[in-house]
């Protein structure tokens, strides 16, 4: 099982999409401790978690993994939801694009499920306005 390639399928396009915004919005992945501790500037956190790996398949050359993608978007507090929702749009667009991939004979093929959210809260410390979206994914690693 190539978990790293599955993670890359999610992380890379999100990194590119948020990096292409003007100004670019930093995105922090799992086990990255560089999230701005006292910053009030906007940023994004992405968590990719894995659930079941390799339920029985017809072919031994195929690896399957399921899991969840959780994206939390932090923007300035007290300024309304508009900016946050713009960034949510960016994340949702990327997730939807992931489903456009076509299954080949090699590589990693990933599809996401229904997207829950965004749900909003504003209790994060430092004071930020936070939205969360999450979805399931099923990935197939073809060898």
């Amino acid at each position, binding site marked *: 099982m190539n978990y790293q390639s599955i993670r890359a399928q999610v992380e890379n396009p999100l990194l590119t999409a948020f990096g292409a915004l003007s100004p670019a919005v930093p995105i922090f992945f799992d086990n990255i401790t560089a999230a701005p501790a006292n910053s009030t500037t906007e940023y994004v956190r992405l968590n990719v978690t894995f659930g079941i790996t390799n*339920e029985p398949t017809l072919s031994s050359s195929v690896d399957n993994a*399921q*899991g969840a993608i959780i994206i939390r978007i932090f923007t300035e507090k007290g300024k309304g939801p508009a900016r946050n929702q713009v960034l949510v749009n960016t994340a949702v667009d990327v997730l939807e694009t992931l489903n456009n991939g076509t299954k080949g004979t090699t590589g990693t093929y990933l599809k996401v499920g229904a997207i829950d959210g965004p749900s909003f*809260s504003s209790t*994060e*410390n430092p004071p930020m306005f936070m939205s969360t979206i999450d979805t399931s*994914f*099923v990935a197939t690693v073809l060898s």
Partner: protein
Amino acid sequence: MATRGQELKKMSRALLEQVNEAAREATVRVMNDLAEKGPEWSGDFKNSWMAIPAGKGASGSTGGEYPYTLDDVPKLSTNLAEMRRVTKFRIENRQPYAPYALDLEEGVFRGDRKGNFPIGKVVAKGSRPTPGKRGNVKGGMGEATSTAEKDWYRTYLKGGAMKKAIVEGVRAGLTK
């Protein structure tokens, strides 16, 4: 093509009861999974899962404690109107702090006081933002302790494990 109601009318009472038993079996498995995968500090959260029938006419008690059994899940009515119901049970945790334990809301957590250790397996130690999510414990300085993986609940719901538990539970219930 027969409607669902017409199909249900053709089913014998024994078969309807078996369908309900399958739902109960699946519910028990999900409750035990949630108890095993969730945080366990005092054990109260683990022992507070309950299955609430979505419809009317159910009998028996709900609640109990881990490991959950069929006795902890009410029996469902075989009334046709109730059998048409897609949602059979709602599984809830009765602890008021459940949204924090499920990593759905941020909270302020008590520190690890002397002589007060979790009975469950510790998966992370360090510091947690204040307020912050339960599972947002990072290594290093600090006395925060986490006994379940970050986002364990979302991962269980979406990572295939819940679906697997339901499929296995229904299979077990139908082959009894």
